């Protein structure tokens, strides 16, 4: 039996890079899993250089994993993964990008500079 897979197009790049670039990843699909589950699995199984902000993992209390999923601003931890179409992930719009899906969401008074 072939395993069902989910495909994700993820925006990559750091602050200095002007050209947008997407990288596609395929992850094993399990019913009920989330976009954050998939990103965590990509980091540990495929590419540890992929950057995503998260803290509470599952409880949706830290509110750190806010990104754009298929153009809509959503939490990665509560958005279910789908396998019937490629999902496109972009950093939160309107915020400076630090790396990949990580944006500068720290309140100004919580930054070093």
């Amino acid at each position, binding site marked *: 039996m072939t395993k069902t897979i989910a495909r994700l197009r993820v925006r990559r790049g*750091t*602050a200095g890079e002007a050209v947008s670039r997407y990288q596609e990843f395929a992850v094993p699909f*399990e*019913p*009920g*899993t*989330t976009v954050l589950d998939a990103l965590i699995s990509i*980091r*540990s199984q495929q590419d*540890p*250089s*992929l*950057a*995503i*902000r*998260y*803290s*509470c*993992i*599952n*409880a*949706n*209390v*830290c*509110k*750190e994993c806010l990104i754009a999923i298929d153009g809509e601003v959503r*939490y990665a*931890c*509560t958005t*279910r993964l789908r396998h019937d179409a490629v999902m496109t992930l972009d950093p939160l719009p309107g915020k400076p990008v*630090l*790396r990949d899906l*990580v944006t*500068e*969401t*720290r*309140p100004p*008074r*919580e*930054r*070093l*500079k």
Partner: protein
Amino acid sequence: MTQLATDVLIVGAGGAGMYAAIAAARAGAEHVLLADKSLVGRGGATVMAQMTVAAALGEECPDDWQVHLADTLAAGRGLCDEKLAALLCRDAPTRIREMDEWRVGWARREHGRIAQVTAPGHSRPRCCYVDFLNTGPAVAATLRRRIGQIAAIKRVSNLAVTDLVVCNEEAVGAVALDIAEGEPVTIAAKAIVIATGGLTRIYQRNSASANMGGDGYALALAAGAELLDMEFVQFFPIGHLAPRLVGMDPIMWDPFRYKLGGRLLDGAGREFLGDYGSDETAGYTTPRDIATYAIQKEVAAGRGSPHGGVYLSFAHVPRSALEGAFGPVIERLAQNGIDLGAAPIEVAPIAHYHMGGIAVDERMASRVPGLFAAGEAAGGANGANRLSGNAIPEALVFGEQAGTAAAGFATGRRLPDWPNGAGASAVAQIRSLADGRGGDIAAVELLDELREVMWRDVGPFRTADGLAHAIATLEKIRRALPDAAVPAGRQFNSALAEWFELRGSVIAAQAVAHAAAVRRESRGAHQREDFPDTDPGWARSRRIAMTSDGALIVDGRK
């Protein structure tokens, strides 16, 4: 390089760290630096707590902090540091009423009194909460608001302290990784409070947030402090297992068990807690260590649920009562395909809290002058098993003590000069890793291996063979660390922070495994299959220290 200086450095901005900052400023510290790897007040365990907070307020019936203390000591199975436990219980009511004044929003009865329920192990209704399942987020938000109003507190998010700097055996500051920039930062400090929480993230099944890998324990050991009771990891018995539940903390079921009397059933639908000497006909009273033991035994005997746990059923509860108790949570459950009236859910033990920690006195001072600890990072108050509801009061009460004591220590102390070369190797380490490094295996993969071995061999059940295997695996991981691959990059290179997380986690894991191997008895959360009985001769804490070559020693012996 950014060089900071402060009176009091607080490492970790969960409940304990935020309260320590408030207390330090209140005690006169002019500069308090509150640093967190994540975002201030959003990472850590406090914000995750959906449950209750124990304090002898006496709102429902007469209560006394000494009764709370007696319950805490009984739950601790003979191992509590009684002075720390007394401090926790004595000051909890003051802190909880203060949170009320700060508008945390404790749930109230119709007549206006604060609602208090009886959580397992408590002899009185003593546990307050914020509806619905909002206790931790409300406490964290309240503290965030307070610290935002105090000019003396400088908050820094995404700043990970990697090393403490010690000079003439006194703590004089720290080196940190500025995660956003990928650059080292030095922090000269007159006093330091470690408030990094526990270590449950080192277990595969855990209810932790991402930044609870035990780094504070490794920092303390390397600075010369001692740890105690490291073998006592609390496994929360009814962590959510299936169906997949998102947007909720996996330990959310407990309050509903005691509000509504949810029943634990084996795979065949039979109640089993009575077989383990815990009759629940009078209500939900089984302590966490016994419930974890009973569930693991049922699963091991082949009587578990399909996903390897047991069932939690609310089928006997009328729908109106479910709706009254769960409120809007019913809708969130429905989004997860869960209808409690129609089908039970599956639950299983999950690493939840760490009783052990940094050895401190009643002022939260470690044996290293200038180094304090607060909250879950500090060990001793909860002995071999924590009473439910004691974690948030511990964060607030110990945070208050530590912040006050650290500010007192800093008063009249000159900002310590770092001798030539102090912190230099830690700074060089950060720079070298940020340049990237090839290798066959990444830190994140080693972390996965560490979590697997800790769950399998140092989890709810332990044997000499399993512990020996874990100790060997952890040693191998620790040796592999210097060669772990790190992709190059500075700005928010998560792999950089992960390398340091692994370095801390492996030492914390070794401390747990060594302590568990030494304790040849079963007590509270430490259950040895090969030594199932509690031995009165072992009713004392074991202490762990680190030698100058990085090896861990238990009670002074390798």
